[in-house]
């Protein structure tokens, strides 16, 4: 028994010794943690890598410190890439990993990608294909696989430069919460690195990323235009086109869709919502529809999925058929016209209108992807059930045949909640 115990102890000690006494321990402050990694195309088949990392100055949480950047004069600080407690550096190299190494000629701490939150590809690079950059990153141990992937209009470098946090001090929190806004509005998708890569390998789903850009605040109408023009809905936006002013210039809107490793098109923010509905990733969002009883007036609806969309895929005469049944629930946000849509007789009409609205939107989105032959919805998963082996499925190549598929969409819409009011009385004035 005693010998047995000693043997066990020796075994455990051996585990230690065999692991080597090498000082694998790295002090936490010996590394600097890149938060954003951007990739641009450069000359001579090289790649331009832009990194954003915290400067470790100031007292607050992550990436803070308006105090720290002050004093030295904004202009000269920006030359060396110091923006509000963050440092942005760009380097040109033949691979991303080497580029990071090369940066350490000037950056005093080992750059670690274990906390990278955001991977930005420029549109140009995405259109050329991202496979050359993704594959090695997938293999690399340091890479954080749950970072978000986006494609930006223009250069990734300039996008990252505009990635200035306006609320709070923590840059990493800002990035994470920015991506989370997809859950509140559905105007752009969330896509993690690992899912993006997996979809590229997948035989039945195409990858997609959020689509980003820089807004120069020029789309906002000045107010001088004709005001009597008819109401225009639905509204779909692409990045850098959102009519707004203020806050950060960078914005996310719409989806970049890929065919394998190459970006082939975009969906605007409304189409993105429709896509997310089918993918069951649409949590909620406000949709405005026109009030049919009072033209020119609108009804904002808080829309969510009533239940998971029911999708069936089968073959008929060799043609793949996809049946999509979507159940949508809407809460009344407001009724400008004060028509009592809560009444049973009227609510049915409203339900019908919502149904038509979404059926048209879903139809439009599906048609667009079929034109691009890009199944971002993952319909292939339902088609796959018709093949007995994966080899047969791969031989059939769903991604190629998506454009031939017949997709039937039915929407069931119900207004479930009326908000805090049940019925509205006409407003009384002296006239």
């Amino acid at each position, binding site marked *: *028994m005693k010998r047995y*115990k000693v043997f*066990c*102890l020796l075994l*455990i000690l051996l*585990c*230690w010794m065999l*692991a080597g*006494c090498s000082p*694998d*321990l*790295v*002090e*936490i*402050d010996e*590394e600097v*943690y890149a*938060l954003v990694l951007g990739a641009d195309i450069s000359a001579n088949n090289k790649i331009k890598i832009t990194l954003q990392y*915290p400067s*470790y*100055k*100031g*007292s*607050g*949480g*992550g*990436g803070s410190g308006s105090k720290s950047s002050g004093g030295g004069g904004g202009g000269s600080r920006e030359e060396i890439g110091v923006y509000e407690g963050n440092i942005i550096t760009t380097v040109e190299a033949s691979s991303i990993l080497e580029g990071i190494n090369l940066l350490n000629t000037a950056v005093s701490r080992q750059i*670690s990608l*274990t*906390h990278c*939150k955001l991977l930005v590809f420029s549109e140009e690079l995405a259109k050329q294909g991202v496979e050359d950059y993704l594959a090695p990153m997938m293999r690399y141990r340091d890479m*954080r696989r749950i970072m978000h992937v986006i494609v930006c209009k223009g250069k990734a470098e300039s996008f990252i430069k505009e990635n200035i946090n306006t609320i709070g001090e*923590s840059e*990493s*929190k800002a990035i*994470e919460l920015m991506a989370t806004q997809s859950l509140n509005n559905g105007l752009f998708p969330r896509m993690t690195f690992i899912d993006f890569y997996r979809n590229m390998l997948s035989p039945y789903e195409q990858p997609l990323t959020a689509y980003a850009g820089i807004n120069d605040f020029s789309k906002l109408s000045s107010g001088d235009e004709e005001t009597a023009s008819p109401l225009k809905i639905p509204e779909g936006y692409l990045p850098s086109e959102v009519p707004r002013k203020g806050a950060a210039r960078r914005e996310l809107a719409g989806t970049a869709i890929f065919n394998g490793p190459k970006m082939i098109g975009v969906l605007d923010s409304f189409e993105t919502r429709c896509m997310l509905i089918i993918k069951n990733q649409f949590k909620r969002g406000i949709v405005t529809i026109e009030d049919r009883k009072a033209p020119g007036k609108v009804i904002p609806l808080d829309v969510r999925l009533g239940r998971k969309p029911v999708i069936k895929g089968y073959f008929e005469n060799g043609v793949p058929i996809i049946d999509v049944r979507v159940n949508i629930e809407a809460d009344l946000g407001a009724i400008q016209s004060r028509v009592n849509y809560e009444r049973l007789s009227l609510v049915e009409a409203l339900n019908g209108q919502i149904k038509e609205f979404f059926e048209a939107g879903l139809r439009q989105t599906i048609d667009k992807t079929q034109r691009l032959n890009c199944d971002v919805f993952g319909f292939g998963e339902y088609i796959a059930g018709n093949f007995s082996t994966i080899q047969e499925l791969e031989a059939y190549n769903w991604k190629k045949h998506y454009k031939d598929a017949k997709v039937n969409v039915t929407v069931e819409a119900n207004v479930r909640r009326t908000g805090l009011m049940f019925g509205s009385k006409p407003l009384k004035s002296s006239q």
Partner: protein
Amino acid sequence: MVMILKKSKNGFWTLLSLITYKKKDKPEEFYIPEVNEGESRQVSQEKNNDKSTPSTNEKQNTQKDNKGLKKPIPVSELKKEKTESGVKKDENCISCSIDENIDFINRMFNAPVNKDIVVREFNIAGHYKAFITYLSGMADKITISNFILKPLLAKKSVEDAEEDCKLDYILKNVIETHQAKKITSPNEVIYEILNGNTCIYADGCNFYISAETVGFDKRGVDKPQTEGIVSGSQEGFNETLRTNITLVRKIIRNNNLVTEFLTVGERNKNLCSILYIKGLANPAVVQEVKRRINGIKTDFMLGDGMMEQFIEDNTFSIVPTILSTERPDRTASHIMEGRVAILVDGAPFAKIVPVTSHSLFHTPEETYLRWQYGTFIRLIRFLAVALAALLPGLYIGLVGYHREMIPTDLMIAIVKAKENVPFPTLLEILLMEVSFELIREAGIRIPGIIGNTIGIIGALILGQAAVQANIVSPVLIIIIAVTGLGSFAIPNYNLAFGVRIVRFLFILAAAALGYYGITLAFIAIAALILSMKSFGVPFVSHLGPQVRQSHDAILRWPVWKQEYRPDPVNPLDVRRQPKISRKWTAKDPKTGIDRERNNDDEGR
């Protein structure tokens, strides 16, 4: 100078003596001689005496032999000589002569050098020579004078006696103490006197009478010092064995509660008692406890802590395998589960055997509380052990190896806080851990009045200053503080010690190999604990092979569900209560009012 030159005959030497160093004549310093050295010293002294007054050649010869051989006398022989001269002569029987007996007592207690022993000679009823003897301070003088001396000295008390030995008559008729018995062995006489009893001897008898007169100063029953609880009994043991047994007996009013006395320690003859319920505790356990205690051969036994170390199974284990408690109620509840309690005179603690690991996490608190609350505080304690043992190690592993697991914001905050700290994390942790242990130790040892403030000084000032001086990062202070809280929340003092030591092992393991190292260290410790036994019971038998659930091991179930006694102890009576212990739930309340019918009547 001139004076000296003039005065002295040899001026030069005097002058020289003034400027040179003279070795002082120092008296020899005291030192404790070795046993044999002392012997030889004596021998040489005696030799000198012999030289001055030469008496016998024999003695000289033997001394010469001794010197020539330089043979140390073995300790056992020394002892033999002593006993030969002392007890052996009348080891088995008591002399019938009063002078010999007085001589015997004086010799055994080293009187008159030893001032504690009192030998009071008197004449019983004015006729018979007798004496009483007791240890001053251990015996109660009022009892002696009122209930022993007074009746004995009364003239008429013994005169009518017809028996041969007056003591028999005295024992039956005169002595007025509660307990009094005949003692026939000299060793027993000594033992009785040592215990504080008074021994009475009358000329012509070959035995003593021992009358119970124990009365020494002792601490009263107080609140338990280390096992305080909010709800429930607030009584704790004190240093007197008798009181302690009474405290337990007060809770278990059962005629089968047996108290057995054993004596341990050859020189101090400490009294030790074993408490168990006959017919409930497994006789094998009782047997084993007695076997182990009787098997201790040591000259000094100070309380239960020493006893534990002498009888425990694994002396090298990091966790205790014997439960120590200073609460009579806890002792009683363990006895009622079929365990054996060991109480040693002179220490306010009871040792309970055999125990399993979960007992170390229990307090009587949850027994008094409703089961929901009891379960909750128990879970908190398990968490406390985990935190106290692992947290610093986990922190080291986290920041040293597994940084991807830290939320980014927290990590950047940690880095910023550590930016100006020049030490590696391991050193920071060790620094703070060691100072925390210092605070803890100092807090116990420091005199009472300032003892309370040391915690504040230690925690606030030291921590705050260390952070401000950039010696440690502030996150670390939190880690250490939580770890400290965890170790304070461990209810068993001995277990808390074990956890505090193991913590350092985990810190080093994490520094060497990250979480992999922690895993290895955990496996090693778990393997050791799993292989341990406490008086034949596997230490973690509640987790090990499936046993009958007592429903009071890790979680505490409702009290009516605790139908069985713990299985590993193998008590003779397995059931604590029948399946339906709340009989009233199965019966209608007989209030005398048939409410339903009344209602019906009203309805009609």
